[in-house]
């Protein structure tokens, strides 16, 4: 049974992802910051981590580097809407969003996805990261 860990400080996003990805065949757990996420990862292994880039305690790129170092088999998808850098809503095409996701690609994320996205897009990216070891760039 695949296990997915969502690390995102936006409760709405975390809960929505848990809701749409949970099924009889998939267990989804959530964490509101990198520290909790890494602790959860240490307690029980997961197959996939979906991690927001701007987190309250650590940036997503740093968290990704740590996960890749300590849990090399875990697949990682980075998600971002531009971050808490003064932008008042998601800007998927903004240079800030692209830069944050590029940093995550460089840190070792297997795929990146700008917020907002549809469930079908997320499912397609999940299928891709499970079916190939290829790293996707922005």
């Amino acid at each position, binding site marked *: 049974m695949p296990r997915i860990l969502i690390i995102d400080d936006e409760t709405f996003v975390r809960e929505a992802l848990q809701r749409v990805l949970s099924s009889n065949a998939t267990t989804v757990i959530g964490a509101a910051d990198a520290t909790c996420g890494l602790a959860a990862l240490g307690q029980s292994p997961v197959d996939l981590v979906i991690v927001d880039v701007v987190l309250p305690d650590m940036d997503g*790129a740093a968290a990704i580097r740590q996960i890749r170092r300590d849990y090399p088999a875990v697949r990682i998808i980075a998600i971002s809407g531009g971050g808490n850098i003064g932008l008042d809503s998601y800007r998927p095409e903004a240079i*800030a969003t692209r830069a944050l996701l590029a940093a995550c690609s460089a840190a070792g994320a297997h795929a990146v996805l700008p917020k907002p996205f549809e469930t079908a897009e997320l499912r397609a990216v999940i299928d891709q990261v499970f079916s190939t070891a290829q790293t996707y760039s922005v």
Partner: protein
Amino acid sequence: MIQPDSISASDAIWPDFVRRQAEITRLVLVDDHPVVREGLCSLLSLECDLTIVGDAGDIETAIELVRHHEPDLVICDLNMPGCSGGLAVRKLCRECPNTRVLVLTAHDSLECIRESFGAGAIGYVRKDALRADLLAAVRRAAAGTQATCRGVGDIVIRSWLHELITPQSSVNTPLDEEDRQILRLIALGVPTWRIAADLGRGVKVVEKVRASVMRRLNLQSTAAVARFAVRYNLLSDQEVDQLVSAE
């Protein structure tokens, strides 16, 4: 058939034509968010005519890097630790006068735009601009042309039109020499009695001028006067430093 022997060293079809070497623009990146710096470095490095020669998370390191590398352009955030607003740009432009500075910021208020250009920036791009807009602005700014992203020009024009129809609210309200002197001293935190003594005027007169100028310019506090004085170059560089260190 053309014989190879017939081709001499000066047989170019256009003898005076000299192909220009591809010019590489050397950049320094300044932003206090490491993940933003890392990502921007990744994105900009994809461009064959751009190269990042250094990046910094604070203005002092940035100045050292710029002195060492002498880049064509510095891409600089506005809010740096201990150096916010246009002060980061002002410091860079003052310490490294041959370097052009392009502001890349999440802020898009007219005040920030005005402060940045007033401090010596050659361009202003918002962080929510498209990647193509940033690249275009980088190339224009590096070539010495003022550059902004979409939206910044609209803000400036809207403000200009607003000032045209409400001239009494304009910061362009004429200031005479005494007004400027008093504003400068208020900005530096000099008490009214001392201003009066320095200018050889009565305390009541200075209080009246002070209230009048602040009302005309819609400045509500000493801090607002200080910002105005920095923005409109009423202070010397040493006085700006004095203000910054007092913050």
